[in-house]
């Protein structure tokens, strides 16, 4: 057991964070969101750094990839890094079967717009027990306006071309997707909480900083517990290569945490928290989108019960 970063992990994180200061951050996210745009430049920068291939075989580094995914989400990066650089390599034993293509993950059982579909080259569709992949040519995706922090679109599978069958196991895809969701959730919760704590240290009402009121402090402390619990469950699961049960446990805890962090950061930030001029929404609104994927809290929690105790 060792909960501290080793030297190499520290170097990776420092480099990625430096890169993110330059290529991501809330201001850039807000600017991109205005057009529903995707951050191809961020992807290019990540590719140039080499840190987008940490999950490549023969020795895929899930934990380091997870640390990078969390850092990107905390910097509000508008990139499908987690899908393409963590989830799909996870489901294929560390292969990058679609090269540098931008991926959209689709849950066949839950219709509706898909995160990053508007920028995606390939849709990876998880059905009950199989995985199908589609090339998304021009006209295959209809962009949809959304306030939830991600570029999203509806995929018309009639105009998408199915790729030759690849041996991707549905359960492997599902467990890595679940854990990928947790990584993005942890990063977004961290961003939301940090920005709220910073604001409440400064914002004065009744002659004192709002953050000095105990009623406020306790809620923020509860959020911190929720975020830290999610973070360490996620890192432990990533280290183990996303075991199904540990990934579902992490998802159950993190998605419940996300509900709390969303509600409390907004409540405590007051009206300014709803505006585009304040950064909170960049992370908080994403939490709502992440909360819905793969069936949400209920599905993650039932998956825990199924795997641990054999519930239906």
């Amino acid at each position, binding site marked *: 057991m060792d909960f501290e970063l080793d030297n190499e992990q520290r170097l990776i994180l420092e480099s990625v964070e430096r890169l993110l200061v330059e290529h991501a951050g809330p201001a850039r996210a807000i600017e991109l969101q205005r057009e529903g745009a995707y951050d191809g430049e961020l992807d290019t920068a990540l590719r140039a750094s080499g840190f987008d291939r940490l999950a490549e075989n023969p020795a895929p580094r899930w934990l380091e990839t997870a640390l990078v995914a969390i850092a990107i989400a905390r910097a509000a990066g508008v990139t499908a890094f987690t899908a393409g650089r963590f989830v799909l390599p996870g489901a294929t034993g560390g292969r990058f079967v679609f090269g540098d293509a931008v991926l959209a993950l689709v849950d066949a059982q839950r219709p509706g717009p898909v995160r990053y579909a508007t920028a995606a080259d390939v849709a990876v569709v998880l059905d009950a027990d199989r995985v199908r992949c589609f090339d998304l040519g021009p006209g295959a995706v209809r962009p949809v306006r959304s306030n939830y922090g991600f570029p999203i679109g509806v995929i018309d599978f009639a105009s998408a071309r199915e790729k030759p069958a690849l041996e991707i196991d549905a359960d492997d895809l599902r467990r890595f997707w679940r854990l990928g969701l947790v990584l993005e959730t942890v990063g977004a919760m961290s961003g939301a909480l940090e920005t709220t704590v910073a604001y409440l240290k400064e914002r004065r009402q009744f002659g004192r900083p709002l953050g000095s009121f105990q009623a406020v402090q306790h809620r923020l402390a509860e959020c911190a517990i929720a975020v830290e619990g999610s973070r360490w469950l996620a890192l432990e699961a990533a280290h183990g290569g996303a075991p199904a049960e540990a990934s579902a446990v992490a998802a159950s805890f993190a998605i419940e945490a996300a509900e709390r962090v969303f509600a409390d950061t907004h409540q405590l930030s007051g009206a300014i928290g709803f505006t585009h001029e304040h950064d909170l929404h960049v992370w908080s609104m994403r939490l709502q989108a992440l909360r819905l994927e793969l069936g949400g809290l209920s599905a993650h*929690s039932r998956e825990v019960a199924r795997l641990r105790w054999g519930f239906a």
Partner: protein
Amino acid sequence: MEFNWSREDTLHRERVREFLTERLPGDWESISKGGPGSDAQAAFSRDFCASLAERGWLTAHWPSEYGGRDAPAWWHSILGEELWAIGEPRGPQYMNVNWIGPAIMRFGDAEQKARYLPPIAAGQQLWCQGFSEPDAGSDLAALRTRATLDGDAYVVLGTKIWTSYANHADHCFLLVRSDSDSKRQRGISVLLVPMNLPGIEVREIPSVVGDRYFHEVFFDSVRVPSSCLLGPEHRGWDVVLYALQYERVGAARYARAARTLDRLAELAQERGQASDPLVAEKLGRARALCEAARILTYRVIDERAKQRPPSSLTQIARVAGTRADAAIGALSLEIMGTEGLEYGSFADANFRLSMTAGVAVGATEVQLNLIAARFLELPRD
């Protein structure tokens, strides 16, 4: 970062499990039902801890000069997890090896170390913790039990309350106000008090948590030899802070909660709830709470194993553990229905044990205050 157990750690856990299978009597489940402070468990602990000590496991994590084996701090957690999971056969003695012993090592003089540590390491002694008072609960620094130096003894006058294990204890780790002019944290001292001194009276406080759970301890001008003073006079608060850091994550309550939850899931299935998605969801969420408490506690043990200064991660782990405990207590009643209302039934025993989690070792609100101040660095109230 490394989240796998080392080979030695895994072997140690296996050895502990084998030992437990061998050593625990057939009626252990009924012995353990009353919690670590029950008569049955306190009595059992004297035998059980002695046999742990024989194997060198009771205090494996202590330095060898004090009867330990210089084993990694993790061994103590592994032992704690395995023992708490089955209902803590060390009884009250888990406190001894977790924080009372280490506090004596850190602050005791040579004579005290020689007197107190060997019996603790041999699993022969029960201690209780004389901290809370009628007017000093969460606000521990308001304590008023007075100790006045008179020749070679302190004369102790006052009342301690909520004292678990006081009815069985051989010694009390007692906080007193040794400087009567002092305020708050200054002027507090620690006395290691034999419980058989004249003038000490222990009375049970009947409660819904269970029989013989809480006690009041009255000190009526008890003469405590001055050689019982632990650490510098009037500077006992430093000792308390040191001890509390260990205490707050000392009990692997999450391991007990997780084991209880496994049993509860079995019971739910036996009662025909295996296809009820709501029950599955609640059980799954409760499992996630246990797991979060576990990993956050490990985070603290990692700090301790590396001898880093204690941080507010301790409070984070503590509150997470409390949440898991409370959720599983409530879920026990929910799943077992009105059967759980019978005293001593599975659900009842779990529920009652879970009730104190948010209050013991400093109320949750105090922990949240500390997280706000130290972890989030929010301005003072």
